[in-house]
């Protein structure tokens, strides 16, 4: 049917029901406006193509892809000529760094080896603040992403953070400040990003259990604009952690009052949504991607360890689940609180920071076997040192 025939039919409708004429004119006018706008967009695009702006944009995109490729090569190694082009990376290939950071953006980097048990201690009263320092073990040739509570992100190479003396005592004043938090914001977490090209999503979790996933294909835009978003719904909520994962992965987080919630990454929303109903005093203290062949380890402030098989993780479908209670309410009333959780294998090691500032490294196998962690004081936080990273 030709367009003129269609117009004839519209006219017939207008003749049969004159009140339809107004509606037809409105609909056609709206279409005309939309097409005009589209035409302008196409003309703009045409100009961008002609004057080279678009070419520049694609060049930037290519540069970013090359950057991602570099990250991959550094992660998985490459041929001799490639390694020669990446001297900083090759120099640091065999070392492992333990990062200890606080929410003011201060970071200690300690280079550790496979045998070390006491990397050092932090001497500072800020350890007593409500936001506990956190531990992260990464290869020294890694690149890390810093997520701030405003939703801002930045990246930095681990090797660019000055290392402190192993076995020493350090004050936060001596700690490096890779990217100083801006007014009103704090450092929420640090995440290694060399797996970025191989992952499908950034997965954020907030202090109040709000979860959001973002396609990692948008990494260029995220890193370019230095903004990932807060991933929260409530004004007073703050981002807690971000991790990289695949569509088929599971995701779990644990609260200070011992509520465990398992989620299917595939079913999560791209917009922030509350996934757990928390009491007023409860908040998230750990999140991780459990693997099928690993155990989930949960640590209380007194050093008690609870172990669960990853396969036993129950997935929540509800948008406001209560989560699985790890301890009975009577223990909560006695003051037991959780300070850390992770997915571990027997051969991994666990770094433990206590309230005296001491950092001790234990074998996961011995912790799981004993059912407790020994520490000088109350435990503040833990970090997993994967076996393959240490070797």
């Amino acid at each position, binding site marked *: 049917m030709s367009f003129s025939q269609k117009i004839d*039919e519209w006219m017939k*409708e207008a003749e049969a*029901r004159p*009140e339809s004429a107004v*509606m037809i004119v409105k609909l*056609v006018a709206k279409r005309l406006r939309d097409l005009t706008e589209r035409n302008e967009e196409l003309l703009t695009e045409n100009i961008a193509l002609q004057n080279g702006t678009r070419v520049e944009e694609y060049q930037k995109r290519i540069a970013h892809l090359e950057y991602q490729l570099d990250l991959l090569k550094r992660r998985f190694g490459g041929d001799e000529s490639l390694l020669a082009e990446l001297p900083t990376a090759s120099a640091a290939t065999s070392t492992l760094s333990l990062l200890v950071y606080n929410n003011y953006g201060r970071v200690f980097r300690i280079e550790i080896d496979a045998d070390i048990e006491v990397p050092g201690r932090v001497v500072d009263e800020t350890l007593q603040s409500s936001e506990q320092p956190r531990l992260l073990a990464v290869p020294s040739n890694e690149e890390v992403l810093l997520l701030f509570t405003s939703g801002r992100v930045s990246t930095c190479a681990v090797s660019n953070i000055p290392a402190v003396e192993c076995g020493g005592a350090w004050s936060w004043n001596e700690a490096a400040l890779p990217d100083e938090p801006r007014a009103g914001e704090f450092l929420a977490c640090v995440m290694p990003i060399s797996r970025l090209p191989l992952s499908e999503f950034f997965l954020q979790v907030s202090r109040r259990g709000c979860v959001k996933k973002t396609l990692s294909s948008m990494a260029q835009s995220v890193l370019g604009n230095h903004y990932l978003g807060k991933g929260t719904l409530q004004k007073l909520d703050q981002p807690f952690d971000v991790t990289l994962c695949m569509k088929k992965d599971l995701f779990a987080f644990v609260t200070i009052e011992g509520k465990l919630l398992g989620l299917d990454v595939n079913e999560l929303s791209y917009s922030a949504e509350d996934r757990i109903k928390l009491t007023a005093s409860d908040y998230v203290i750990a999140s991780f991607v459990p693997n099928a062949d690993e155990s989930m380890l949960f640590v209380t402030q007194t050093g008690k360890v609870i172990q669960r098989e990853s396969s036993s993780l129950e997935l929540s479908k509800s948008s406001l689940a209560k989560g699985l209670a790890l301890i009975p309410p009577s223990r909560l009333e006695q003051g037991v609180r959780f300070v850390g959780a992770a997915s571990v294998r027997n051969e991994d090691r666990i770094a433990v920071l206590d309230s005296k500032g001491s950092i001790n490294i234990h074998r996961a196998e011995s912790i799981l076997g004993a059912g407790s962690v020994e520490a000088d004081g109350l435990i503040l936080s833990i970090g997993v040192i994967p076996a393959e990273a240490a070797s």
Partner: protein
Amino acid sequence: MSIKVGIDFGTSNSGVAVYDGQRVRLLPVDPKNVIPEVIKTVLYITRDYRPSIGQEAVEHYYRDNVNRQRRFVKQWAGEIDVYGADMHYVRDIYVYVDELKPGRLLQYLKTALRKEGYEGTQIFERYYTVSDLAQTYLSLLKKRAEDVLGEPIHAVTLGRPVKFSESPERDHKAQETLRHAAHEAGFKEVDFELEPIAAALDYEQSIHEPQNVVIFDFGGGTLDIAVMRLGDPNQRQVYASGGVDIAGSDFDRAIIEKRMLSHFGYGQVKYHPEIMEMIHAIPDWMALPEMGTPINKNILDKAVHAGTAPIQLKALQGLIYNDLAFTFYNRVEAGKIALSNNGATIISLEDKEVALWELYTRHQFETDIDHYLVDVEKVLLETIAKSGLEPGAIDAVVKTGGSSNIPLFTEMLTRIFGAEKVKESNTFTSVVAGLAIKAKM
């Protein structure tokens, strides 16, 4: 305590209601729907065989499927024996299967009950008979109703059209399939009531003196008519009933065939039988997904490359390979519904490769479905004649079902019976309300 409910297992929408002897309670079985008491008759089954129904199924489908990746693998499907004059050999048959397909969305389950030659469908590694599909839907519906009521449901009065099919054998088979499915879904007692009679029982609640009433139940799958004496439960009588396989889905099909196919290359592609087959599959919701093979994609790519209606064939490719078919059918249906109140509407679909826009008027719609009007009027007048009543002896004509709101048919009823006799009822809930009343009898 366990109770008996009424269930309207409709072609497009379903519902559950319960009657306590005083008032009918429509159960909000689909809280995500705009009208929670109405649930879409759609079923989504994931690759790990987890089913969902209603709006949840629709959301699940959209979340998993739109613009997803595909990966086709060649899979052995069976073998065929080939006999020649003096030879016999066996040949293997292979099909291309999308191994990343996350699930299957099924709609028009009720139509499948009566569709000739349709016994069931393969969903991943399992074969679901028509009865299995209906059972899966009904068991989830039952569970939701039990959650609302907070007590178990042991029995059900199911609605059925006056004629599932013109063929008595197929009609009987469809009812028995539905009965079997209901039993399998966990209903210990199952009985049936004709849908127009159920709608009549609901209407009877609102009248205070005996009347001769025509129930005009025009839904998504069939038109059902009943001529009844109502108003006094002791003298309730069905004078005649009739029906025909014409309804909303036929009108959707007519719109697609007459107005939409040109957007996908119809009239511009002439010498490509494979592409013509794909275009002709568009109105058929069961056939279209089957077109999404790598061979067809290759054919479309080549035609686009050769400059054969590239915009239209890209749109066809988008429709098939971006899983936009369900959205497309919904847009067409929404356009049709809008024309019940407006003189014109827009049917549009926009995606990466599809930019469909069609201004559609009521005049065009009425032209497109004009031939159905003749059949509908014929069935109506035959049913009235069978009842032994003259149109003048009819006191009220009660419209129910989504298609009964189409002005063309309202005008027909007004012309035959007079405007004052044509009564509106609750379009989507009068049948289920009547079924609940029947369940209590």
